[in-house]
């Protein structure tokens, strides 16, 4: 039995439910794995944790992995399973504040938390959609104040992950039909989202464990897709003060918009589309100045993906 400490990207919210489904439904055990899930504090939090070898595996943002490997050439970390095929990065506005189209943000105030992943993709988004950034007033703000500021109309739109922002806004009493969401992936941004990453030293020593993990996790996602409420319930037993309905909604939004995309339904989850992947690296060059020439092969490998069809959704 191999023990795997898994570094999550974020807290125990809806999209984390599949891990707990995989644990509680015995998928990891079936692969001979003993998995423990640790909460994290952002999409890039898990990368150094895995690179140092303290966590053999984790969950992190593709772009951040590219940047990390550029800054720290040779660090033993790489992505092995794409999960957020269509990243939820979005610009979210309110129709009542005059944001019905992307262009409407010109001349208005856009709220953006500086360390936000969605904000870092904004230049590409603006370029692809022909936004004139010189006409947009950007207001830096903190995560906890992002939705309240939009709810109070202090900003016309914000950047963020679509499901977080939408859910938080409805909690603050904004009508759902007042909210306008512009997912960047739908507007020319080819970036991939969060992926399962491994420590390459660990992977070389335990290739079956990694493959087994991927297989089990995919089963967890399938369980979560069929019985989302059950999966969330399994997660909530670990964070007692959580709200089942809210987290279920969050999980469903992630499933629908981010994980179970048309491409995934057609090709199964876990892998990347080579052409799109290449484009995404090109786009990354626009927002990040590489120290060395980018080496996309080092950022993602499909070598550990199971080939027994366990990744396909019907």
């Amino acid at each position, binding site marked *: 039995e191999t023990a795997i*400490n898994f570094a999550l990207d974020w807290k125990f919210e809806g999209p984390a439910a599949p891990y707990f489904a995989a644990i509680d439904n015995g998928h990891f055990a079936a692969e001979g794995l003993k998995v423990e899930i640790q909460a994290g504090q952002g999409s890039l939090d898990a990368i150094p944790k895995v690179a*140092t070898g303290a966590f053999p595996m984790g969950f992190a943002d593709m772009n951040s992995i590219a940047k990390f490997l550029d800054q720290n050439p040779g660090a033993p970390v790489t992505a092995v399973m794409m999960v957020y095929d269509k990243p939820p990065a979005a610009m979210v506005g309110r129709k009542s504040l005059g944001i019905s189209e992307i262009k409407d943000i010109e001349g208005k105030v856009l709220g953006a938390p500086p360390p936000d992943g969605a904000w870092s993709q904004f230049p590409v988004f603006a370029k692809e959609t022909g936004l004139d950034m010189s006409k947009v007033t950007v207001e830096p703000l903190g995560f*906890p104040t992002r939705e*309240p500021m939009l709810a109070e109309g202090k900003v016309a739109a914000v950047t963020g992950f679509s499901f977080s922002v939408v859910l938080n806004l409805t909690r603050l009493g904004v009508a759902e039909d007042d909210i306008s969401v512009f997912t960047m992936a739908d507007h020319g941004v080819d970036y991939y989202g969060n992926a399962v990453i491994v420590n390459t030293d660990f992977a070389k020593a335990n290739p079956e464990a990694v493959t087994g993990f991927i297989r089990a996790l995919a089963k967890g996602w399938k369980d979560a897709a069929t019985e989302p409420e059950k999966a969330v319930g399994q997660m909530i037993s670990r*964070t007692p003060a959580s709200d089942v309905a809210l987290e279920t909604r969050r999980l469903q939004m992630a499933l629908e918009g981010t994980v179970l995309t048309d491409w995934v339904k057609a090709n199964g989850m876990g892998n990347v589309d080579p052409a799109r992947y290449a484009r995404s690296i090109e786009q990354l060059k626009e927002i990040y100045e590489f120290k060395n020439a980018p080496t996309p092969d080092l950022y993602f490998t499909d070598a550990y993906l199971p080939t027994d069809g366990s990744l396909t959704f019907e």
Partner: protein
Amino acid sequence: MEFLRKAAPPLIAIALILAFWEWLVWFKGWPTYKMAAPSDLWPAFWKYRTLFVKMGWETLWRTVVGLGVAVVFGTLLGMIMGFSRLMRDALYPVLVGFNAIPKATVVPVIALIFIGQHDFNTILIAFMISFFPIAVSVSIGLSTLEPEYRDILRALGASRLTIFWKIALPKTLPEFFGALKVAVTLAFIGTNLMEIVEPHGRGLGALFDSGKINADYPLMFAVLFALAFLGIVLFYFVVLLERIFAGWADRSAS
């Protein structure tokens, strides 16, 4: 009766503050996500009462252990700086600089170096944030020890160690407890910092976090209250210890 007379002013003050707060929230018509009123908090306390006890205990024991380590290390460091002027000159600015680094930035680094060892990490932060005042006060206490005090024993041929145990240590106790009153609050803050910045699902900080995730604002405010309460309890526990071990230094009684 005597106890009542002593407890009345703070209790009345707290009641007044709560009343003002309730009024302010009502008057401004603030929604709970902006600022919960005290009356919003009771349901949160009641609903999560077992969690409050459990998480409170988690926070408490890590704080106390961290503080314990800080006491031992701070006292040793304070002795080194108190007995050697050179060490004092050399280490003081270093400690000031270390102390000025916001521990919120240190938390991720620590969490990275000692990955997964949550208890250890939390205790380490509680320790790192709280040993400074103890070291400083012990060193000041020792370095300002009047030579006459030392001479009483020196003249009898007592060893340095005896002098430390019989004179220097007890003489420094009032300063030590003064610092401990500061340190206990700091250690408590350190524990919570770890629980909030590097969540590991334990302690009141985690409860705060889960309130945040669920946009359960009354719960968040309720946790702040619980923290304040626990902080007061810890503080007055140190005051009690001070009364017992350094009560002789309290002039107001005599």
